[in-house]
């Protein structure tokens, strides 16, 4: 069984050179979206991140984009099976991935049996409905 929880994450987008993104890519809650973009999920000091980025890329952008994202978390021993019903992506034991889940581009943070699906706010309801429909008997 898995528990489904929807919550509002804190998300900071970093758009900068590859080197600058590498610098912040190892921070806790970092999800590498592309070579030039990192999403930092969780409480981070925007000013501190900006300072680190600008040192390597003066044109880098660090922006609080929390309103653009909603998180649906699957937590529990059934979380991976539930995820497997929605996506063909293979998940690491722990780490992050970017890909398509139920037809929507999402950012995924994984820590063993906990899977956080960060979905654009505008399609959050769609993903929540798909999870509830397709994984009904796996949810508590």
């Amino acid at each position, binding site marked *: 069984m898995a528990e489904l929880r929807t919550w509002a994450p804190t998300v900071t987008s970093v758009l900068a050179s590859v080197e600058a993104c590498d610098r912040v890519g190892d921070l806790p809650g970092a999800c590498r979206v592309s070579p030039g973009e990192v999403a930092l999920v969780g409480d981070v000091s925007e000013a501190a991140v900006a300072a680190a980025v600008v040192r390597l890329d003066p044109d880098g952008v660090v922006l609080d984009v929390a*309103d653009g994202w909603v998180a649906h978390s699957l937590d529990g021993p059934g979380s991976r099976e539930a995820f497997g019903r929605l996506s063909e992506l293979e998940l690491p034991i722990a780490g992050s991935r970017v890909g398509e889940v139920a037809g929507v581009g999402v950012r995924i943070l994984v820590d063993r049996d906990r899977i956080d699906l960060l979905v654009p706010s505008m399609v959050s309801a769609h993903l929540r409905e798909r999870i509830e429909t397709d994984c009904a008997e796996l949810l508590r």
Partner: protein
Amino acid sequence: MTPDPLRFEGREVPVLDGDTVASALFRAGVRTFSRSLKSRRRRGLYCGTGECPNCTLTVDGVPGVRSCITPAAGGMRVERGRGWPSAEHDLLHVADLAHTLMPVGFYLKTFIRPRFAWRMAERVIRRATGSGRLPLDAPATRTVARYARCDTIVVGAGIAGLTEALAAEEGGEHVLLCDEFAIGSRLAPGPTLDAVRALETRARATPAIQILERHAALGLFDGPTVPLATSDELVQVRADRVVVATGATESHQLFPGNDLPGVMLGRAASAMAALHGVPVGRRVVVVASTAEGVEHLRVLVATGARVVALVPAAFVDEVPHEAEAILDGELVEARGHGHLRSVIVRELGERRRIACDALVLSTGLRPRDELARMAVDEPVRLVGDAALEADEPWLVGGYLCLCEDVALHDAEQAWAEGFHSAEILKRYTTATMGPCKGAICGHALACFARPRADAADVSGTRPTARPPLRPVALQTLAAPVHEVIEKRTGLHDAHVAAGAAVGWSSGWTRPISYSDPADEYRAVRERVGLMDVGTLGRFLVGGRDATTLADAVFAGRVEDLAPGASRYVLALDEGGYVVDDGLLCALEDGSYLLTSTSGGAERMDSRLREWAERLGLHVHVLDRTSELGAILVAGPRARDLMGALTEDPIDAASLPYPGHRELTVAGVPCRAIRSGFVGELAFELHHRRSYGPQLWDSLQRAGRDVGVSPFGLEALELLRLEKGHVYLGQDTLPDDTPAKLGLARAVDMTKPWFVGKAALERLAELPPTRRLAGLIFEEATDYGAALRGAPLTVGAAVVGRVTSAERSPVLDRAIGLGWIRRAGDGFPDELRAGNTIARTVPTPFYDREGTRVRG
């Protein structure tokens, strides 16, 4: 017995527990289950395992249902799909008598001249063939697509499959075990079923083995990936290894009369007797050359039928004493008109006629190995009967392909015509191309071709196996791609709570109207209206090369855009065709906020990133569509309403059109952009999505004194049309240049370069052939939208089409936009649209000087 019978072509047929549709009908005396495709010959129960086409029926309006494996239920409506006037008395059976007129490949060599003959023949052929009518009026249902991952997938849950699954699990693997049926459900009580049940119990007790029953494997693809289908879901299984344990099918034998109703394979007869308690005949001839065949023989003898058994001499002790045994006899022919009446056997060199009403064949096995034969360099292993070497079938006469009505003599004729391999024989005769996909006849066709090919020194390999292995509904195949994704703005709940009628537009769920669209329209023209425009695409374009990118992607000049200014921009492709439009706002730090159309955001995003990469620019593009909400405040009292909620300056000098600035409205930080597409003083308030409900409520409350009203898409359609604002997609075609759309003002050909410039230069040398024009309809004052899509004609010639039309309260006329093609030296200015006259006029229809927009 279930309380309700099923209804079969107007009569009631009792249903017993465990019945399939076929067993219930067979018990009720039905022997003709279908008619063959071409010759309309009667077809009866044959394989009993869902592989042949003979028992396909229309069940509850769904054609092509394999009745031998479909559980029966009370209330089902069952009918045979083919036959005129009925399958029982099919007048088109005359086609069988005229077989010589329809030789193999007849449609490739007849009705060729005169050319119209084929059109007529095709119509007749189409009406005469097919296996039922598609349920076009059936309610839409949803097939769910999902994914599964495992180390090993075992396809087939018989003894071999269960054994393999347990062995893989013991090796530490995560196993997915699937079967087309419920495990053991197709087996009669006996030692085999006992063994399956014992293995099943162990497998179910093992958490690492996931069991999916009633999931049919459709094929094997790269990965390897095996899609499994049920009636309501598609599971795409990605595995490291595939084990094919799909068993074997009893051999299809070719001899005269082999397709008569009453001729059936041993498993069908045995299941009918042992599982459903229905004897297959009173006088039964059993041809058994395998141990399994002898088992079937015993089952049939136990039903009380008079049985004659043709068996090898070695099996003499196995034949029950109630049956007459013919040792080492040879089946020569099956005879009957419409149903089996007798068989001819050769016994000790003498021909003997045996009267019978059922002929049961259990003469060898053909492995069900299609899944493995689809694999190209994939880790696939055959086990159990699926790994057997197939027995050679008899090739004496009768029908080779039951689906496509291909007789053995058809194959011989095709060979004589030069089609010298199994693969091209298949294409010419269409054998193996019917619903069974060669499951019954594929091996026989290969065996027919192989010796002849060897003699002719040409390839005689077996035809390729292709998915889907089992009949599958198109909606199931579409399930993984038919993902309807509903986008919602942050104000969605507020709209629904306000009772708005919502609908789809450009992938978003948006308010169509809140009350009367005419009232909403008047509010914007006379007072002030509010619209949720959070659907617009919004992008931050930053980085030191942001201006270079914007100048490259957009046709207008960008480099002179000062902070606080904004400009309407067009994005073109390399062909000079309009891809999308938007508003580009220059920000104080050298970056830009770009808006795009609601439906074009993804396209705009990909174009920006593509050209940044192609030109090697240092640019950051951030899609902020999901993050930002936006509310349009539009109307002559818009500034009054805004002024009540902000202390920032919003006069025409401080916030001119076009332009933008940061404001705090009702305590919400916003970027206000002056916009003009509704033809009134208007502010787009872009804000963080989470502030949307607060800002919307504040604007509604503060606007009560000035008569504020929310408005939806229906009012917007009229507002923007009066302003002559072009909707990309609705008013445009894929090959529209800015000039065709009357948007040349958004192009600066003095720029050194932009995407599409070279094409526009070349196109400028050609005379214009088509343009989008404003239209006023002379007599249509009481309707407008009905003219959308109407052809525009001059005389008898169609020269264009109306793309948008509405009745304009301001002009008291129907107005529109439409395409017009050049006619002669120029574009016509008077045309007919339906019953009215359309005259071309310049746009906009409203606020031509732009004084209201500039406010």
